[in-house]
């Protein structure tokens, strides 16, 4: 049985003000206009990935980091309070599959992997701040890079 994360989160964080879960009634939909093999794809990850000497994240931090597409695993660090990061520290591809996406780009499965990739620390208490502060900035970046699709990986 998959874990029921909503009740288990309420239990884990029961000493805090109850979290207001995002419940959407409608689904946004943009059809993919061309095959994936012709698309420019961006990687966005909420697992708190840092490149080289980029500063770490703080509690309720709505900033994000640009991660160069050609970053090596040894260039990456993880900073996140909300999930056990040992596996991701050992191999960032567990939550930030940059190497796998480069391979799939080289194999022609995706047209182009957008540069840079983006990462933030998903433990942000206010969904309003994600919607109003963080998301618009990343969307602006994606528009500027003229990406066709993005692959969102949580942790």
């Amino acid at each position, binding site marked *: *049985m*998959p*874990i*029921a*994360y*909503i009740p*288990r*989160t309420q*239990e*884990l964080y029961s000493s805090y003000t109850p979290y207001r*879960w*995002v*419940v*959407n*009634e*409608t*689904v*946004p*939909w*943009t059809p*993919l206009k061309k095959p*994936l093999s012709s*698309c420019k*794809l961006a990687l966005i990850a909420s*697992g708190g990935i*840092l490149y*080289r*000497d980029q*500063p*770490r994240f703080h509690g309720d931090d709505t900033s994000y980091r640009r991660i160069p597409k050609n970053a090596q695993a040894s260039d990456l*660090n993880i*900073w996140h*309070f*909300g*999930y*056990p*990061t*040992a*596996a*991701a520290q*050992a*191999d960032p*591809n*567990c*939550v*930030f*599959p940059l*190497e*796998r*996406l480069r*391979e*799939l780009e080289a194999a022609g*499965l*995706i047209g182009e992997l957008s540069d840079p990739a983006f990462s933030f620390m998903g433990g942000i208490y206010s969904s309003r701040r994600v919607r109003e502060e963080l998301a618009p900035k990343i969307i602006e970046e994606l528009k500027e890079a003229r990406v066709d*699709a993005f*692959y*969102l*990986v*949580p*942790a």
Partner: protein
Amino acid sequence: MTSALDITQAVKPPRSVFLNFPLGHQTGKPHQPELQRQIVRDALSCFETIRRPGEIVELPYVWDPNDRTWEERDYTRGFMPRRPTPAEADASEAERRRRYS
């Protein structure tokens, strides 16, 4: 990509791929590039196969065939390792700055 089915059902992203692995492994296990590649490849193929807005495709991979009860223990009290203290965090950040300056 998601490992939290109930949250994803509430949020309703346009296209989702559910992998029933513990948090921190949404695109696979460490140092298993073949598994990671397969998961990412399966996920990306959904850009072309999902036609119904909000559809969630479930991937067939099993976290541990010898442990069917990990979900009962994971993400419960005490599951998080100790957090680094602010001093430890500052030290590791200073070390990264030194390494790349």
